[in-house]
């Protein structure tokens, strides 16, 4: 295994509390500007599920010097690209621009951080857009409500992670302009944000520009963000059976899992990789190839940062198969892993795959800037982007066995049976 050649990262804290990280890359074809605000759908106001995400749309709906919708339009007309995403834990805004438009990207971010100007009309329009986003991405897709059902099984009602980020449409219909301004005042402030710039510019030049465009913005009153507490393991094997108009049933087994920063998270990641990632994984080899009872297997980790995340093992049966047999087979493999642990060959294979995936993640500017921001915001150290892989590669077979026993006990699972409507 080769050692990661480090990326250059230099961090500075501005007087107004904005965390700034410059990552000098002489090969970068332009500049990536990546801004994280420490607010996500977990912070949706009570009775306003989906508000943080609707608000993300409204950050493009006008500010003191930028008309509604022009943020993207101005950048596009200079050859740049911009967008934003909301997760339960953070909201990020990003621009990838030709170098000559770097300062303009900062200026645009500064304008909407210091002065949001949303009209009643823009709010109504973006509410309509979000309604259609939910229909397009979830309601009008086969298996589109799987995530929502998994969250409902994994988290108690009212928990910040129990509802998908897209939220509840009737809640959004009640949102007012006053709510929008209040959300901006509460969360959108330099001392609640982290800015990463990947570019061929010298660090000093990056810091000078960021200070000029964003350094003058006043911080807000001290903020207490309540992050979700860790939950105990699931008990009693909660089980949900739904019927949907899909061609094939799907089974998901879920566990409450370590958050992104928890010491056990890499080891749980290895356990999942050994079981269900790639064609050499145990479930693929046995359920798909040897026994021919599964059409496919897979795994997911929702990657939440507050206390508890959620991992899943999933499988679709073959045409005449059933979910009970699949569940039984998966549990047998899990018990074997907990009892005997992974083999040296499996560990070596998983390490090699994790290494390639990590390098691939950092290959492009946009995702690298995002990974650096995760290092700053979630792990509290920009340099972590150069150590994250080492942390994963240090995991031993024993760590995996212990983590599987701690986090993935069969009796601590929940089960989603996604059946074909008759």
């Amino acid at each position: 295994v080769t050692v990661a050649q480090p990326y250059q990262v230099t961090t500075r804290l501005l007087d107004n509390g904005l965390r700034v990280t410059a990552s000098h890359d002489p090969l970068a074809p332009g500049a990536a500007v990546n801004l994280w605000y420490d607010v996500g759908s977990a912070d949706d106001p009570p009775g306003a599920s989906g508000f943080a995400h609707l608000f993300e749309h409204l950050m493009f709906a006008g500010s003191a010097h930028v008309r509604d919708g022009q943020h993207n339009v101005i950048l596009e007309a200079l050859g740049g690209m911009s967008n934003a995403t909301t997760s339960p834990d953070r909201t990020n805004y990003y621009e990838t621009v030709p170098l000559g438009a770097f300062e303009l990207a900062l200026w645009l971010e500064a304008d909407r951080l210091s002065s949001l100007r949303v009209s009643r009309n823009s709010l109504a329009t973006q509410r309509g857009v979000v309604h259609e986003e939910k229909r397009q991405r979830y309601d009008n897709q086969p298996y589109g409500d799987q995530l929502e059902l998994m969250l409902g099984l994994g988290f108690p009602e009212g928990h910040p992670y129990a509802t998908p980020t897209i939220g509840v449409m009737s809640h959004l219909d009640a949102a007012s302009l006053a709510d929008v301004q209040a959300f901006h005042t509460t969360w959108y402030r330099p001392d609640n944000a982290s800015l990463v710039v990947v570019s061929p510019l010298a660090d000093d030049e990056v810091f000078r520009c960021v200070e000029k465009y964003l350094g003058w913005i006043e911080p807000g009153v001290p903020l207490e963000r309540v992050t979700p507490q860790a939950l105990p393991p699931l008990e009693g094997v909660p089980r949900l059976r739904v019927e949907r108009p899909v061609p094939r049933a799907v089974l998901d087994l879920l566990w409450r899992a370590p958050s992104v920063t928890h010491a056990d998270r890499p080891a749980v990641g290895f356990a999942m990789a050994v079981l269900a990632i790639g064609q050499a994984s145990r479930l693929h080899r046995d359920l798909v190839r040897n026994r021919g009872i599964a059409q496919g297997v897979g795994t997911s980790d929702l990657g939440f940062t507050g206390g508890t995340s959620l991992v899943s093992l999933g499988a679709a049966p073959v045409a005449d198969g059933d979910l009970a047999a699949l569940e039984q087979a998966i549990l047998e493999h899990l018990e074997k892993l907990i009892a005997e642990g992974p083999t040296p060959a499996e560990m070596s294979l998983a390490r090699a795959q994790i290494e390639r995936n990590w390098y691939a993640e950092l290959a492009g500017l946009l995702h690298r800037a995002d990974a650096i921001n995760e290092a700053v915001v979630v792990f509290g150290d920009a340099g972590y982007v150069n150590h994250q892989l080492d942390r994963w590669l240090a995991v031993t077979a024993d760590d995996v066995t212990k983590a599987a026993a701690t986090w993935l006990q069969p009796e601590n699972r929940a089960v989603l049976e996604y059946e074909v409507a008759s």
Partner: protein
Amino acid sequence: MMPRRPAVRPAPTWRFPRPVSQQLSSGLTVDHYLLPGQRVVTLVLVVDAPLTAEPAELEGVSALTIQACDEGTETHPGTALTEALEGCGAAVVAAGAGLNGAYLSVEVPGSRLPEALPLMAELVREPVFAADDVARLVESRLLAIATAECSPPAVASKAFYSALGDHRLARPIGGDADTVARLSREHLHAWHEAAICPERSRLIMAGDLPGDAAQWADAAFGSWTPPAAPELPASVSPPAAPPRSVLLVDRPDAAQVSLRIGTLTPTRTHEDWAALQVANAVVGSMFGSRLNTVLREERGLTYGAGSSLGPGRDAGVFLAHVECRPDSAAEAVRLALELIDVGASPITEAEVRNGIAFITGSTPLRLDTADAIAVLATDFTLSRVPADWFDAYMLGVSSVTAEAATAAFTRYVRPDDLVVAICGDAASIEPELQKVFPDGLGITRQ
């Protein structure tokens, strides 16, 4: 206080990376794209084999053959092959077919190229296509087809292509449920022998390649000398412009209405191509395009509306797409047809400036990974376009005028001749749609 809006310097001229080509004694050409800093290397085997060579009753055999190659070889039967491949940090990340050929793509850290290349060569050269594995892949493909049937956007796209007339493009590249169900290991073996050979192939290697990459490529693929393959039919003939048709596919449970509007155009070798691309940026490929500005940003009828202009070897496809709320379907169709009508509302100087800056400025930013370069190089290979074509194209884009963009677009995209495909709940949207299309509407019920 807020500083003044800064001035912007123009983006520098950019060139598509030039490959260094290596000719192996086996007849295989290897293109090396040296991309410093790109630790993960993308390797693509591209096979020039047109789908016209597929027997009509076995359509989909090209795609399934290349997808089945990593299911085991003579040297590494069963999962031994992927265990070896994944064990050295590599993975097959994509495999599939297009109208004119097939591709198989492997990613691996550059440091482990010497381990991955022989395995990649092995799976291309000596796949066993075990009967069980083929049957399983057939089932997977059939399930994917059935799942697409439950996805209204996929149904609308399929309906659009089906209206392109008597041409292979009108039928799914990966075959339909009937043809796929017939495929067996014998069919895959026959296609493998006929189509996948060094003379017809090219290996693309993109990334921070080790200094001895050429030696490793030669060691892996230099001895690939299968028995002479038969001649394949000539490439797929250029399709004719499709006749006007308006199709409505009924999906009573659909949560939205999926709209596709488009037609065939010339492709990238045509003199109008640069002007067409700039026009398409203005009409639908930018966030600030006409379609997205009106349908999303002004009206809030959709999460996304836009268009694409994709090049093939012989023809391009212009395709506008809207996913919209059911109660505004007729309005969205009417507006989309209006917004595409560049003849009625010619492209302005300001629009063409934005379109040019968007294409020339964002292209280098999008092509910042080995994977992105390899994907484009694969497309060039399948379309038989040399890599230096791209620089000429970018230069052509820079000099497109508003008149040229309008003229090129209206020459090929005429609102009254377009294919329109709609998928949604017919009972609720049909009456209003009849008013938009008084000449008639072909309706397919479920």
